[in-house]
């Protein structure tokens, strides 16, 4: 099986890798670029643990082929902290204890960041619908929603 050479931008860095066309972007991120923040919970688009932003659009990286990343811009959870400072969402997740095992957390952080870029002041309902494709088996979601609301308020300068 011949591999395809892919060049793409991840968290601001130009990167390249060789991909078998059957490999998902999630596999390429984790196994070729050592970016293991995005997780595989299901591999079928149901759980959102693999969420990344692809040219600004929130996607499941398990439902994107690695070869489709050619020439694109990708953002993962590894790109959220800046110069060692956690992103407000990351800080608020810790403050509110919005995680237990943490498996869903990278995907939820990336998804929530994408939401706040579009809508800096989402309602609880908007947050719950936006995150409906991010499953969490531990927290019961309430603390996640509070953490997102609190981070949004801080980012708006309202807290």
């Amino acid at each position, binding site marked *: *099986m011949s591999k*395809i050479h892919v060049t793409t931008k991840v968290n601001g860095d130009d990167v390249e890798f060789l991909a078998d*066309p*059957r490999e*998902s972007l999630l596999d390429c991120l984790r196994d070729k670029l050592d970016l293991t923040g995005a997780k595989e919970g299901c*591999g*079928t*688009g*149901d759980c*959102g643990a693999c*969420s990344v932003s*692809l040219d600004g*659009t*929130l*996607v*499941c990286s*398990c*439902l*994107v*082929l690695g*070869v*489709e990343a050619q020439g694109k811009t990708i953002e993962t959870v590894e790109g959220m902290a800046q110069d060692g400072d956690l992103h407000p969402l990351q800080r608020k997740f810790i403050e509110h204890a919005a995680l237990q095992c943490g498996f869903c957390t990278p995907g939820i952080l990336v*998804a929530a960041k*994408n*939401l706040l870029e579009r809508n800096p002041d989402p309602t609880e309902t908007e947050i719950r*619908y*936006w*995150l*409906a*494709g*991010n499953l969490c088996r531990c927290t019961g979601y309430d603390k996640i929603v509070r953490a997102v609301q609190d981070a949004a308020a801080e980012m708006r300068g309202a807290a």
Partner: protein
Amino acid sequence: MRYHTPATFEAAAALAAEASGVTRFLAGGTDVLVQLRAGMVTPDDLIDLKKIDGVKTMARTKDGGWQIGVAVSGAELGANAALVADWPGVVEGMELVGSTQVQGRATLVGNLCNGSPAADSVPGLVAAGATVTVTGPSGSREVPVGEIPAGPGKTALKKGEVISGVTLPPRGKNGGDAYLRFIPRTEMDIAVVGCAVNLRLDGDKIAEARVVLGAVAPTVIVVPEAAKAIIGTTLDDAALEKLAQAASAACKPIDDKRGTVAFRTDVAGVLARRAAKIAYDRAKGAK
């Protein structure tokens, strides 16, 4: 698996025509990658359509309809206010597909060509009278959306044929459409029944109507008796009752864990009533 990125639909069709093994087109990949991952379908040739010019555009046609590219995602349809104003039922069907993440990728044509009897965008497209352009080795032709599904997982497309665009007719005055589905929870599930209604009013009376059901037969079904039940009426209770009966009578559903035959048959009538009311209110100018 060979991965192709043709620059034109003619080239995509030629690749598919020459391919000897399992061939799939790649739009949003939300069905193709799930099937690949599950080992259900590993294509020998995968033809990515997203490098073709114009596949991401939505434009008004000269007559006031819409031309929609085959790689336009559900989220992009939903963000197009003018399109939503014209065809809210078509867009709400597509927006029910999957999560935010799936919406960022999933397309109308992928939903249609995956061939699921429960595909959420298909009843709305059929009710609207949408057509697709089919490009094959011997040129292109326009085909009504309702003629594409050919049973679970099957389409009427022949080897070497690809859909190169979706066309929605002009909305025109006093028209409205709506799509509703029943699922056991509020998000992320497969329709147990889906129903789309598209109608046009003359004053308070319904002058034209089309009622389409999903998930209650091997393909989407148009129910002319249900349309007849409301044409010429103001959608009074008697008309709604006849509409519900006709919708239920047209069902040939399966029995599965999501719903029994009796349940699906009953719910088809309930959804037909509700969708007709929404379409009627929209035709009257409700947002």
